[in-house]
């Protein structure tokens, strides 16, 4: 197993936006972490990437086993050996992800020089090859450009190139397409999927879009308000969602033949981490709520068909 997260809890001062999260990821596999904003999926990504202290959070409990090493226990200096080198990160907004005052080439090359010990020239060569592999035309000219001269989709490819330049084993992509045009979104998702298969990477894909998950993910972990609602292999999950929240998310995907504007959103909003209610955190938005959902936290239970589920009143059996 490449990555194995066990009972992860994240704290920001007195609030605990993420509690008891567990999931696994193998090489050559894509796991989708799905949920609305505020579900804690981005914080989970930050925790795995070792960036949590930079935004003021800390890992309160649990383990993040990466290739057998528990990243949750590594000090900052130890984490640096993983960041960029073995774990690459792609962030949400390519518009703000690049240093606006540095040429594209340097921003990618530095990773190769730092982590792979390449010379300036070798790194430049490797960068050109990498950009070409990511289907960036005229890689040489792009290297000399500044970020503001590129389109959003092109910038996101550069961010992906930066993440890949250290030849990492794990790629974490946090909403890599939210800020992009729909056509470009599809290209980037396709590209990420291809990279995983070709290079045998593990990819942790953070998204709120079940449509994206359906396109490329092998495994899915559905998060709600900092807790796991349901995990399963993607085909099984889409065929037979059992948590009402999962079903609601799937219903949000626009489908062919659907009347325009009939998209069913989920009424209500994710509670903020400072005001989590008792019981199941989804209960006040749930169409299948029982009395006990208000008071008892549903435990996360392994299911015979694989994956796990935390619900007192799950949907139809499989």
């Amino acid at each position, binding site marked *: 197993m490449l990555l194995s997260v066990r009972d992860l809890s994240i704290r920001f001062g007195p609030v605990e936006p993420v509690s008891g999260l567990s999931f696994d990821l193998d090489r050559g596999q894509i796991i989708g972490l799905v949920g609305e904003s505020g579900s804690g999926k981005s914080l989970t990504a930050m925790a795995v990437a070792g960036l949590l202290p930079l935004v003021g959070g800390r890992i309160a409990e649990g383990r993040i086993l990466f290739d057998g090493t528990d990243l949750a226990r590594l000090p900052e200096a130890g984490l640096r*050996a993983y960041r960029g080198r073995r774990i690459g*990160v792609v962030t949400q907004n390519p518009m*703000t992800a*690049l*240093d606006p*005052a540095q040429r594209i080439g340097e921003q990618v090359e530095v990773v190769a020089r*730092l982590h792979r010990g390449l010379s300036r020239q070798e790194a430049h060569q490797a960068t050109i090859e990498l950009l070409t592999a990511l289907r960036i035309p005229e890689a040489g000219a792009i290297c000399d450009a*500044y970020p*503001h001269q590129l389109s959003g989709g092109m910038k996101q490819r550069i961010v992906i190139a930066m993440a890949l330049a250290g030849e990492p084993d794990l790629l974490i992509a946090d909403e890599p397409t939210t800020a992009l045009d729909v056509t470009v979104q599809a290209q980037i998702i396709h590209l990420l999927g291809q990279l995983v298969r070709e290079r045998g990477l593990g990819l942790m894909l953070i998204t709120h879009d079940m449509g994206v998950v359906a396109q490329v993910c092998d495994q899915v972990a559905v998060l709600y308000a900092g807790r796991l609602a349901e995990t399963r292999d993607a085909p099984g999950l889409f065929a037979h969602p059992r948590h009402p929240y999962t079903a609601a998310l799937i219903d949000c995907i626009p489908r062919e033949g659907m009347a325009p504007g009939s998209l069913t959103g989920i009424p209500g909003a994710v509670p903020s981490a400072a005001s989590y209610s008792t019981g199941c955190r989804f209960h006040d938005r749930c169409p299948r709520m029982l009395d006990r959902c208000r008071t008892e936290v549903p435990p996360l239970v392994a299911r015979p068909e694989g994956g796990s589920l935390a619900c007192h009143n799950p949907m139809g059996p499989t």
Partner: protein
Amino acid sequence: MLSYLIRRLLLLVPVFLAVSAVIFLILHLIPGDPVDNLLRVGSSPAQRAEIEARYGLDRPLVVQYGIWLGDVLRGDLGTSIVTRRPVSQLIGLALPESLKLGGFALLLSSVGGILLGVIAARMRDRWPDRLIMGGVLLGSTLPSFWIGLLLILLFSVQLGWFPVSGARGWDSLVLPVITIGIGGIALVARVTRVAMIDTAGRDFVLLLHAKGLPPERILWRHVLRHAMIPVVTILALRIGWVLGGAVTVEYVFARPGLGSTLIKALNQHDYPVVQACLLMLAIAVLLGTLLGDILQAAMDPRIRESIA
């Protein structure tokens, strides 16, 4: 870049005209007849007529301004009423002294302020930050002439390390530079700290960490570089301020310079000298803003492009 420079310089022309017009008008705003204000008490009618003819004082204001501006542009700043010497000569003596003092003060303010600002930002909310910000508050609120006097009291009188006043040797520069520098360091440190904290919270910095770059390298090569954009702007804008701050400090330390010349001329009602000093300070301010714009463009490729 060159065409930008030229355009930026051309832009200064109307601004310079406006400022110089205000300075020209001072002579007409003060109580009394402008001719009297340009003459020593007890001058002969012939001298009076000469002055009137020289400045065209019987003609419309616009024409007078034209004559005055023409003279100024040819380097003729008029004649001092008190010393009867050409004002350009006085300025020629005062300007280098002020530039020397202002230059070193600016250097001290930038280096010291940036260093303290970076330390404060890195140690945010810990004791070094609190200490520095406390010092910044003091440095920006203590009157500079008072600091100067205390420094004289301590280092010149008690310890005898530096001369009390004057501008003979390099050692006479130390205390005045520190006096101006304390206010300057406080200002620069405050701006640097805020800019560093703002920049450090930006997306691309997080991604630099994610790339595994050493924190020191991120700090000095990336964060500091972006944080410097507002700092440089403030510094450039404050060139005039440093020279103006020199007014007090030159007076306290009895140094020659634009500031002390200005104060003396004000007290003696020597208006041609007052106008010339103000003009020099105004030009310094304008060049400062120009320098700020250019440095900004040099540091930020987006600005560079938008003006190319």
